[in-house]
């Protein structure tokens, strides 16, 4: 038997970050991600050179991340929906200054104070840019606790490789639930790439500058264009998705995160009734796996998107599929979690 631990999603994310070499964690408490801070408060100081700092606010936290990331360190912050909204200026700055960092959003019901139930209402914010200006952030949407662990571990590598913020987009269900997790090994420090651009004191070299600023349109354009070239590489190389039962299904369901795992239960329910449901689950919601979904859509009449929101990823689905594909949507809002049965009912409308 492999060595597994029973952990909450929040805890698994925290511990996996530490194992990925994250040594600077700044955050502000908010439900349903409070356990993430609590884990870090205990374990970050145990890690060599580790900093846990509860910031005065989410804005303080994201800007401490900006500072620590500028200094070339692996760094992370986490929050939940309202707190992530407060970080939008900071995220835009991180993107604009080409800084690697990991931001975790354990989504809850919105808008406003909403409630603390699981939800997926921040898909647009994460994938289209909740901050100002043109930028994208790699956005990873785990659907189980073990996957939350793995994706967090990978997030730091992606962030460094492309000098970009990476978001873990999960929800209260994944944050709060426990599952057995096989944690990754601690990353040896020598495997973390050096960052010659970092502001670590200009010893033996010219001064480094971290900024998102450029006077005049053409200069800023050049920075933007270079960044979008990196985005193209990301779109080429880093797309991830999962397919279940897509061989010859009657219908394909597109869903991410928590909803996707519920769809897996729906698939079993449906099988009992002789109905074949396929599941297409984007793991990277940006870059969205449009090409593969386009291929798959040739096999079916209908791609039904299911989300815990009022219809957000469905826009990316529509942009991806073939013109003749039907693209209905089923969503629950306000922190309501659809059950496998709810989804099956919806499916039956289309097959």
């Amino acid at each position, binding site marked *: 038997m492999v060595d597994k631990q029973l952990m909450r999603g929040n805890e698994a994310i925290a511990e996996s970050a530490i194992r990925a070499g994250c*040594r*600077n964690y*700044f955050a502000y408490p908010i439900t349903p991600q409070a356990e993430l801070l609590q884990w870090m408060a205990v374990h970050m100081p145990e890690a060599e050179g580790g*900093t846990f*700092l509860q*910031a*005065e*606010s989410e*804005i*303080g936290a994201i*800007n*401490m*991340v*900006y*500072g*620590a*990331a*500028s*200094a*070339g*360190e692996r*760094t992370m912050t986490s929050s939940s929906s309202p707190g992530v909204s407060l970080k939008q*200026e*900071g995220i835009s*700055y991180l993107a604009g*200054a080409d800084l690697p960092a990991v931001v975790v959003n354990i989504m809850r019901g919105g808008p406003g104070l909403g409630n603390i139930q699981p939800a997926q209402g921040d898909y647009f914010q994460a994938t289209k840019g909740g901050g100002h200006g043109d930028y994208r952030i790699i956005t990873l949407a785990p659907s189980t606790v073990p996957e939350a662990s793995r994706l967090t571990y990978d997030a730091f590598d992606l962030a460094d490789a492309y000098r970009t913020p990476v978001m873990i987009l999960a929800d209260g269900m994944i944050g709060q639930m426990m599952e057995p997790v096989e944690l990754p090994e601690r990353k040896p420090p020598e495997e973390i790439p050096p960052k010659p651009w970092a*502001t*670590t*004191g*200009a*010893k*033996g070299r*010219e*001064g*480094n*500058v*971290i*900024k*998102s*600023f450029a006077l005049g349109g053409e200069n800023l354009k050049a920075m933007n264009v270079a960044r979008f070239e990196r985005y193209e590489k990301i779109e080429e190389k880093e797309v991830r998705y999962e397919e279940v039962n897509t061989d010859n299904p009657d219908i394909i369901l597109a869903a991410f995160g928590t909803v996707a795992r519920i769809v897996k239960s729906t698939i079993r329910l449906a099988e009992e009734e002789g109905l074949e449901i396929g599941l297409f689950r984007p793991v990277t919601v940006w870059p969205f796996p449009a090409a593969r979904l386009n291929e798959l859509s040739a096999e079916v009449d209908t791609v039904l998107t299911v989300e815990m929101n009022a219809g957000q990823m469905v826009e990316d689905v529509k942009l991806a599929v073939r013109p003749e594909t039907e693209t209905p949507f089923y969503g629950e809002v306000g922190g309501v979690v659809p059950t496998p049965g709810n989804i099956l009912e919806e499916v039956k409308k289309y097959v």
Partner: protein
Amino acid sequence: MSDKVTSVKKKDMTKVVGRPDSMNDTQFSYCPGCHHGIINRLIGEAIDELGIQEETIGTAPVGCSVFLYKWFDIDVVQPPHGRVSAVATGIKRAKPKKTVFAYQGDGDFASIGTNNSVHAANRGENITVFFINNTLYGMTGGEMAPTTLIGQKTTTTPGGRKAKDFGYPIKMSEMLARLDGPTYITRQAVYDVPRIKSAKRAIVKGFKNQIEEKGYSLIEILSACPINWGLDPVEAVERIKSEVETVYPLGDIIDRG
């Protein structure tokens, strides 16, 4: 370059004042007579004196000093408006052995950034903060800052600041001195040679405190913004003496080093 005196070779001369080694040749973008330039130079001199050019990481705000990275030959981080103290905290926590300074305008430090400023001070974060108080927003066009004097006309207080509507000139240094976190808080000015020398000593001390791990130092410096004050540079100096200084008295406020 003037060359009226040609009979003495430069090498026989002692340089009394000039560009610090930690700074380069690029011209300041400040307006004529703006004190930001003097303060920048003093920081450069302090870095030279302490020999910390290669150990120093600066963060400068959005504001007239946004181009600080151009003028210093050191590592510089350009943060969001108001977040300089938080960003400096992040850098310092990541690199506790390096010397980190935060350069902030009064809009930056005392208005939008108040939260980050207060809590960096309250944590006793081991950083050196320069807080440039020119009683208004320079870069954006001379709007009121929380530091604006009562009666002072700015573009957003066209009739002069009224306490009833907009409150009082905020004394950040005195306020922060009430916290247990800070080690050293002082208010300086640079409008004449004695003040410049005093400010320089305060700046050096602020850096030393950090190097000796004594904790948070705040050096507030009264600064002229002739263009937005609608005064010529020499009149602006007079205004500091006769008006600004009476509301914001100079001197050390706490020194717990």
